[in-house]
């Protein structure tokens, strides 16, 4: 539905759905055991080679220059099967978007070398924090040769995986923050073990400590908040699409199970209470897909107020996904709670994704502030 009638988008829709079905679904439960089982590097490499990481990047920077609709289509399909990969794509793309917003495309080019292994091309980014909301942040100092960063960054997504990280830092004693790109292999960087988290197990995050680490300023000093907000305006729709993908996956599994599971002498789908739960799920999905389609259109055509469409979509669909995946487990009864089925993972992942780009209540207030300001 999100792809609409656009031929190119339909192809992308098909390709990403097929990739997800073939590459992600069969090993979903195994991949989710990370860090207690190997990381799914071959799948990541394949996804990278299929340009899923470059949907928003302009062609001149080596991307495919599609809009957020394309990225939303990709993420929707991927997250239907396994949102960990979705989290990796989202994080990397969010970092790219900040670099683009800061007119620092050159830094992307420096990192993205066509023949390098995938992890060397990825950018880690603290996707679950809005830097404007947090108190403790790394600080930077100006040196003759550039900038030196020190301090801690909590929950750096892809921290132990990517070769570079985009991070916010403050100039000691001042308001506002700036973004810096650092090399995670540089001297002075220490990276924790993968942080065990609620969901997205195969999209690992780590705590990072910096001591006098050299960093490249991204855009202008103290403009970090503006870049972050610009990124959030655009990336909120793909964020919503991830949650919608999870919803669709949860619904499909619940529907299939309800047709095969018998209780009280009939398929449980034939108990009207179960049917009602499935109907509620279907309504939520239908509404979410319509919202995302409309929001994609608004963002890609930069319609008046497109930013509000984008942010409202994320807030409401992420919340809907939390409710829906709870029901998704419920329809399966006891087996829904078990790791052998996808439902428990979707429940965790949906809640995890609700924290994307900062505290959900703060994002709601920000949305409202922007709305009434205009």
């Amino acid at each position, binding site marked *: 539905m999100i792809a609409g009638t656009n031929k190119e988008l339909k192809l992308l829709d098909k390709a990403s759905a097929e990739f997800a079905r073939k590459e992600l679904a069969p090993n979903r439960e195994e991949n989710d055991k990370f860090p207690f089982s190997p990381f799914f590097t071959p799948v990541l490499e394949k996804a990278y080679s299929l340009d899923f990481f470059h949907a928003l990047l302009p062609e001149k920077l080596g991307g495919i220059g599609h809009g957020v609709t394309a990225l939303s289509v990709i993420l929707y399909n991927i997250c239907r099967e396994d949102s960990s990969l979705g989290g990796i794509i989202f994080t990397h793309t969010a970092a790219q978007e900040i670099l683009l917003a800061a007119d620092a495309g050159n830094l992307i080019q420096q990192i993205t070398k066509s023949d390098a292994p995938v992890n060397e091309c990825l950018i880690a980014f603290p996707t679950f924090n809005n830097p*404007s909301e947090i108190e403790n942040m790394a600080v930077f100092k100006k040196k003759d040769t550039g900038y030196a960063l020190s301090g801690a960054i909590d929950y750096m997504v892809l921290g132990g995986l990517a070769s570079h990280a985009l991070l916010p830092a403050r100039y000691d004693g001042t308001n506002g923050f700036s973004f810096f790109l650092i090399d995670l292999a540089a001297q002075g960087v220490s990276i924790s073990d993968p942080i065990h988290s609620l969901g997205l197990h195969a999209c690992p995050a780590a705590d990072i400590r910096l001591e006098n680490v050299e960093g490249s300023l991204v855009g202008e000093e103290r403009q970090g908040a503006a870049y972050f907000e610009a990124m959030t305006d655009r990336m909120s729709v793909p964020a919503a699409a991830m949650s919608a993908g999870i919803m669709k996956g949860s619904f499909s599994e619940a529907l299939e199970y309800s047709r095969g599971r*018998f209780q009280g002498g009939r398929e449980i789908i034939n*108990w009207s209470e179960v049917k009602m739960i499935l109907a509620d799920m279907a309504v939520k999905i239908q509404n979410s897909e319509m919202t995302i389609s409309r929001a994609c259109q608004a963002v890609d055509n930069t319609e008046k107020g497109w930013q509000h469409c984008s942010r409202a979509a994320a807030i409401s669909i992420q919340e809907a996904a939390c409710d829906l995946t709870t029901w998704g487990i*419920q329809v399966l009864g006891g087996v829904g*709670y078990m790791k052998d089925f996808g439902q428990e993972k979707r429940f965790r992942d949906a809640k995890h994704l609700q924290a994307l780009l900062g505290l959900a209540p703060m994002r709601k207030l920000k949305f409202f502030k922007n709305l009434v300001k205009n």
Partner: protein
Amino acid sequence: MISRSEIKTYTNMSPKFDDIFCSLQSAPKLPKGMIKETKKVIAIARKFNKEVIRPHALALDLKMHENPEFLPWDFVEKANEWGFYTMWIPKIFGGKGYNMPSMSYFVEEIGSACLAMANLIGVHYLGLCSLTSTWHMRLINRLCRDVAAGEKIQTPCLISLAITEPGAGTDVEEMDLADKGNITCHAEKITDGYRINGTKIFISNGHLSTWHIVIAYSDLDKPSENSVVLAVKTGTKGFSFGRKERKMGQKGCPASELIFKDCFVPDDQICLDPQQIQGLKRSKRDTAMQMIDYVLAATRAGVGAFGTGAARGAYEVALKFASETVVAGKLLINHEWAQCMLAEMYKNIAMARLTYAETNYANGLYGSFREMQKKPMYYYYKFMPAKWLEKMFSPMMDKPMMTKLFRKKQMDGQTDDEIHRTSGWGSLAKFSGTDIGIKNCHMALEMMGQAGLRHDRGAEKILRDAKLLQIYEGTNQLNRLNLFKCLIAGDFPQAVVFDE
């Protein structure tokens, strides 16, 4: 202004006074000693949380992520050392005889620190309560004394309840559904006992328990009239453990598969079967349902208390976070919206607690707590030395007459209205407390953002643990239907449940 008969008529109109004012009716009848005792129980639980659970719960959960085969024996032994497995066993059976409602407050406390640990202790009493519901006094005495002996010799003796089967979860909890279901655990009557064949799944504490109260059926075409309740000991020939489930949460409390292959259970371990039911006033089917209701009316209040514990755990983590964390320039606790969210969470906890407490009052008036809460009984058992009680009562319990007497009084003595009232309240406490548990977890994680996602901050575990509460002891959907059946449908002869 109003005559006596009018008062009777009006208070019998829906909602009936007796259905909705259990606490008011119960409070004056309760022994005062229960308050002091309950205070003590809460204090013990808090001390245990501080000294045993909080320092270890997250590490155990992580260990289980890494190695789902691990069994938390250390914890099981610790709880045994603290005397938790006998705390709510009546003194005449060798236990400590704490009042039953205090267990709900206890599991709320423990559940606020770790639901898996609360379940591990609570499920032992689910097993015991199921055994008690058969009123087979000799077996009750035997198993309870085994548990007490296990405490003395520091070898935990736990009891599980095994009713769920691969093809029947909801169906085994409701006799209106059982006969249409795919029930396969067969108890064949042979000389001197039963031969059991079949599989039970998702059995909490399975691998950790010494005794298992197993419900099988002597005629699979008509399970509702042929329930056989058996006490099966770990190690019995023909009985083995299968897989341990890989669960999303409550990892510290294993859910086990129990496999029975030509497993012989002697007659002296049969707690109840169709033959024993003969002579009771209700039909076999209604007696089986009464037994289920009798157990679940009490234990579902306990699950409501788990839900309250989850709601509290989530609230406490979020409150701590809000009081320490600066968000957008000021402490989160000083954002007005966060204050309202915390107030909402606090209210949710209070509502959930009131609901399970009211269910306990109902059980005290009409259900499984009734006998022990009568003032003379309560004080008699409280102040009589345990040794004396054992000497006097233990030999009596072996007499079949005692079982007969207790069954007559407890089973035949309970009216249909009383069964419905307690069962309906049990369901109400279960689904409202557990839905509230999940609600507070969601709110906590929303307030905490990234910090809420991390295992080391403790919030995400509560959400994973809490989700189970909406499923076991009957899904919340089944419990809504049971509430309808027990507290609403009675007034409408045209209402049909489980047959749409």
